[in-house]
């Protein structure tokens, strides 16, 4: 979570609000912020750190592990209509890549701005070519887009 706190401005610039959730109490969240996160991120955590002690929220998001009693690393991108556009769930020992989350947000924002007329192909980044799905594109994606030039 320190990576998200440290790079919060990048998310703010994209108009993204962050909520973090774990089974720890809000009191432990405070101490973690004060004793460790604020030192790693060089700022106090700038978003809501939610407490989900019984795992009720984690259960409806499918990330609560009954055996260990904690929540897995679940990351959800939710659009302004409240629709979940992306999710990623990982077991605890490997951390997330915030840059990938930001790339996905940018791609979903681009598609939304185009009112669904454009699609972002694999590896898309802002400024790269999008595809315009339609009858003319069927069977012709190979003329428009190359996986070698985009990775």
């Amino acid at each position, binding site marked *: 979570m320190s990576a998200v706190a440290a790079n919060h401005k990048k998310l703010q610039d994209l108009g993204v609000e962050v909520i973090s959730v774990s089974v720890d109490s809000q009191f432990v969240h405070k101490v973690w912020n004060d004793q460790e996160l604020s030192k790693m991120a060089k700022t106090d955590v700038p978003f809501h750190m939610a407490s989900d*002690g019984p795992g*009720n929220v984690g259960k409806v998001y499918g990330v609560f592990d009954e055996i260990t009693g904690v929540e897995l690393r679940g*990351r*959800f991108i939710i659009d*302004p209509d409240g629709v979940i556009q992306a999710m990623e769930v990982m077991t605890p020992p490997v951390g997330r890549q915030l840059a990938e989350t930001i790339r996905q947000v940018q791609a979903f924002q681009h598609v939304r701005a185009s009112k669904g007329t454009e699609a972002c192909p694999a590896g898309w980044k802002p400024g790269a070519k999008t595809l315009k799905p339609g009858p003319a594109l069927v069977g012709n994606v190979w003329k428009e887009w190359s996986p070698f030039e985009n990775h």
Partner: protein
Amino acid sequence: MSEKKAGCARPTGAVVGESAVQKSDETTPKEAVMVTAKVGSKAPDFEAPSYYRGEFTSVKLSDYLGKWVLLCFYPGDFTFV
């Protein structure tokens, strides 16, 4: 931001922006009307106690309708990754 009494996090039983389905049959277990998270569907709404900028308060997902939200679950405070 007003301070609020600590309570339990709870899903509201609805998706964001809508009211929970009210089942007239009271013997129906609550879980039966529980929505679960799915890509392409509306997010399950919840309200949870939170720590935010020096205050103990609460956060409700549906208050963020109209904005992009990054919701991050993680195994625990003071863990290593």
